[in-house]
């Protein structure tokens, strides 16, 4: 591969994998909040 193509590919992939992985890991580690007393009174349709 040409070096310019290799650099573009590796740089882009590293950025995307890194950022996507970081945010997904943060989501994985932080669960949805439990409903509290105030929220219990809001209409929750479905």
């Amino acid at each position: 591969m040409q070096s310019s193509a290799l650099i573009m590919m590796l740089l882009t992939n590293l950025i995307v994998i890194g950022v996507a992985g970081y945010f997904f890991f943060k989501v994985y580690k932080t669960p949805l909040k439990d409903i509290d007393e105030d929220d219990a009174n809001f209409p929750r349709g479905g």
Partner: protein
Amino acid sequence: MSSSKAEGWGSRVGLVLAMAGNAVGLGNFLRFPVQAVQNGGGAFIIPYLVCFLLMGLPLLFIEWSTGRFGGKHGDHSTPFILNNMARGSLWKYIGVFGIFTNLAVAAYYCYIESWTLSYVWHSIAGTFKGQTAEQVSQFFVDYVSLGTNQPIVFWVICLLLNTWILSRGLSGGVEIASKVAMPLLILFGVFLAVMGITLSAGQFGAVYDGTVGLNFLWTPNFKSILEPKVWLAAAGQVFFTLSVGMGSIQCYASYLKERDDVALNAMSAGWMNEFVEVVLGAAILIPIGVGYLGIDKIIEVTKSGGLGLGFRVFPYLFQQWGDVLAVIAGVAWFGLLFFAGITSSLAMGTPLMGFLRDEFGWSRETSAWTFGIATAILGLPTVLYFNQGVFDEYDFWAGTVSLVVFALVETIVFAWIFGINKGWAEINLGADMKVPVIFKYIILYVTPLILLFVFASNLVSDDGIIATISHKALKAQIAAATDSNTVKMLQDKMWYLNMSRLLLLGVFAAITALVYIAHRKRLREGWKHPLHK
């Protein structure tokens, strides 16, 4: 507003996978790589990522927070979500786009989804074994020409599967489907990416190394960044890849609790889509295609998109990998396309279901079946009259124009009518990450301008809205035709396209009427606008 049991997400990971699944579709694997090679190769990633940051992410923030805001008031579809955000009777009718677009896109999208399921079956059954390249290509032509009843059978199976999963609700259906489909999609994608990247000339009948295709796709042509059409292509790709402007994100987000985070969720889902598109999608179609056909042939085959390469060529290429690997590769390729498709079509079903349940108290099962039947009726013309251009016509109006119009309006409503301060507070409410404050100004000024640029370009381009309304290309073909049979065929095609438009308009009008009926019902029940309380 609703008499139905509470719906909700079972887990945060499930929600993010479902949202990512909504975004990840066939375009990640078939459209992005082709757009890249046609618009500057490796340099395309620069306008692409800029548009993702300035338009894609802002729209995700807007739609996630708007949806959660609507859910707070018991609303799970865009007509009354928008209605809650602004005074005046107009907004709930603008919100009709958020149901119409999903229904109209699902109508033809489920058909493509059924092709992928069918091709998984044919890969397992060895249908393509021993076939020449021309025979494999002709198989697809015969398939969509309804040479057998198989297309209808697989289409009905797809519709039933979607309906069944939707009838099980979010946590019991959509979330479980996403938790199965998304990891498998990524696994299949990684397998095919490794096969593509490591392909060697002479191995499995390949003429070129896989790296030749990678080189072709990633070599940057930096001069292309100066061309407006490249930025338009980048904006368009980011737009369509994230499934924004449809109303499905708002619907999914409306089942969050008031203080559940939207900022981190939106970022995660958005970047997961980018991982699938830029990392996996770019490593499959072009490297494998170029490895066997060469660059010139790939340029020719992909002139009208990646669908032809994906369905008419790839099954033949996989046969060169030996009997066992051909089956595995076929199942992996069409399997990942199927998972990408179904996670998107499931999202398309939820806005209509949310509306029917909220406004008329329908059960989950009845709402799901209503979506399934409506999709079947609306989609039948795209199946029966595929070769008459009905499919493409739906794709243009619902899958291209409608999205951009709604995204532009909802951005203006969020930033300028609901108000950017309220909107910004909504995005940051319960946020599990600090959203850079620059996004406040990007949403206010930059995103609407980019959307206006995309819309204006769609309006006036040679194959844009004005040209399409007037059948410019078709009339030119008729004028150039020299025999009466061709003229008759083209005139018939024009008739089918006009009928499709009438049908789509009729669907839009019907949903508008339902919104009006729902509004009158609300008033009779004593509903008060949140802004008037």
